[in-house]
């Protein structure tokens, strides 16, 4: 079983990100449990969402304290807040990079991928919402599911142009890790 913790601020789409991640894994033939942890219900407050992926039915219902994978949707959360708490050795972190926030120095036994998700999203979607780009990068960095599964999950969740553009944003995130572009 792999455990994922998503760090974001309320309103940034962490729940949708968790849902898309779980759906992509489900399409790829896995079991997935995705759930939010609601804190103080106000826009901008730090919040988490969690996902578990497994080949078997998932029974564990607690929050994720020792993630195998981390997704940081808002890098400003790394100011004075240890997003790496409990991170497992050998883990993979995908950070939606922003040049104004310093990314952490490489940590032993942890792979950190920084992806300019919001910049890519601004190019593709016209809005700085990097979630689907980051999920594309996650697929490439972890191989937990293929890009096609993720794009199918996106097409199921959204419709019309928004769906197409987000599928493209996911591809861009995927390519960013695979080819460094």
């Amino acid at each position: 079983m792999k455990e994922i913790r998503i760090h974001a601020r309320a309103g940034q789409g962490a729940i949708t990100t968790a849902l898309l991640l779980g759906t992509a894994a489900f399409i790829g033939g896995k079991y997935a449990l995705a759930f939010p942890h609601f804190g103080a219900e106000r826009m901008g407050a730090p919040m988490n969402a969690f996902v578990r992926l497994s080949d078997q039915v998932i029974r564990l219902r607690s929050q994720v304290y020792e993630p195998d994978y981390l997704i940081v949707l808002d890098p400003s959360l790394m100011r004075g807040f240890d997003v790496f708490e409990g991170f497992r050795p050998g883990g993979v972190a995908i950070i939606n990079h922003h040049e104004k926030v310093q990314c952490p120095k490489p940590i032993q036994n942890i792979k950190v991928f920084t992806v300019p998700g919001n910049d890519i999203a601004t190019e593709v979607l016209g809005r700085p919402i990097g979630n689907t780009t980051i999920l594309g990068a996650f697929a490439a960095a972890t191989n937990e599911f293929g890009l096609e599964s993720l794009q199918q999950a996106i097409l199921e969740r959204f419709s019309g142009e928004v769906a197409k553009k987000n599928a493209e944003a996911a591809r861009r995130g995927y390519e960013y890790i695979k080819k460094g572009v």
Partner: protein
Amino acid sequence: MRQYLEGSQAVAQIVRLCKAQVISAYPITPQTHIVEALAQMVADGELNAEFINVESEHSAASVVQGASATGVRTYTATTSQGLLYMIEVLYSIAGLRLPVVLTCANRAVSSPINIWNDHQDSVTARDAGWLQFYAENNQEACDLHLMAYRLAEDHNIMLPVMVCMDGYILTHAYEVVDLPEQSQVDKFLPDFKPVHCLNPDEPISMGVLMGPESYTETRYAIHQTMMDALNVIPGIADDFERVFGRKVNCLIEKYRLEDATQVFVAMGSMVGTIKEVIDGLREDGQKVGLLKVIAHRPFPKKIVYEALKNAREIAVLEKAISLGQEGPLLSDVKSVFCGHGNQPKISGFVLGLGGRDITKKSILDVHSALAGSQVDVKFIDLKI
């Protein structure tokens, strides 16, 4: 068909498949997603039902009570303060023998205000005369709703059913759920045929005054029906398996109990986490097992006794407390041993209140404490 969806959406789909005809509810988190989805289905023409907006849970319960009395299938959902606000109507619905189905998206009760999960709300409504089932996961929540309608409308039962699913932990969790086909549901759940109903052409009175000469008999009848339900449920569960091709447990579930000397007893979503811990303890050679209680009312006393009689140490874990006494499930579990010799050591643990996360460590803490002296109430993860 296997789908990946939110627990609330899954339950709404099941209520649609059960063809509820009158739905009334008042929004309250974490229940809201269910009735929002149903309201949308009615608006989109996917569900031929009347969705009645009301100004409170008291009215929502009153609407489904009245609707059910006219002989249509009804549904409502609520939680926490909303359930408590419904409570006098809940008693009335049971007294009128109306087969209303209600989802309780379990949540803590004020004060202090807390929107997160525990079982204090539904446990407080325990004695209202409703059958009460607790789901471990969203598949079970769906299956229990199907069972709920079938049982409630069975002419040998004719009592309301409350399906309890943990707020957020289940209602807001996305997981894989196998949703049945309409044809399967139609086969399992025939149209509702009321025993009596309000009809202007053949007027009757319901809910009339009954004095000391007859009130006792109405309570006797409900209690007897509850006891009968324990015998009716397994047969209907067999029907369920025939139609849907998978088993449904409706009373209890045993997990690695065969040779267990130490047994956890619990209800709801924490059961999944306990199963994980048991597998770990078993690998270390510890003889631990679990009894999952699904039916809190009627309480399957004999089956619980049979399942637990060989245990030496029993830990009852619950997300509710009868303040000034102990956890209500602990009292129930203790009661099954009354009159039997060689009672095991039965301890009570209260945890997961107001959304406090139940971790594997919480369960291991219970396991450690179990070896010590008997306790009626031990709070786990307490910060003092």
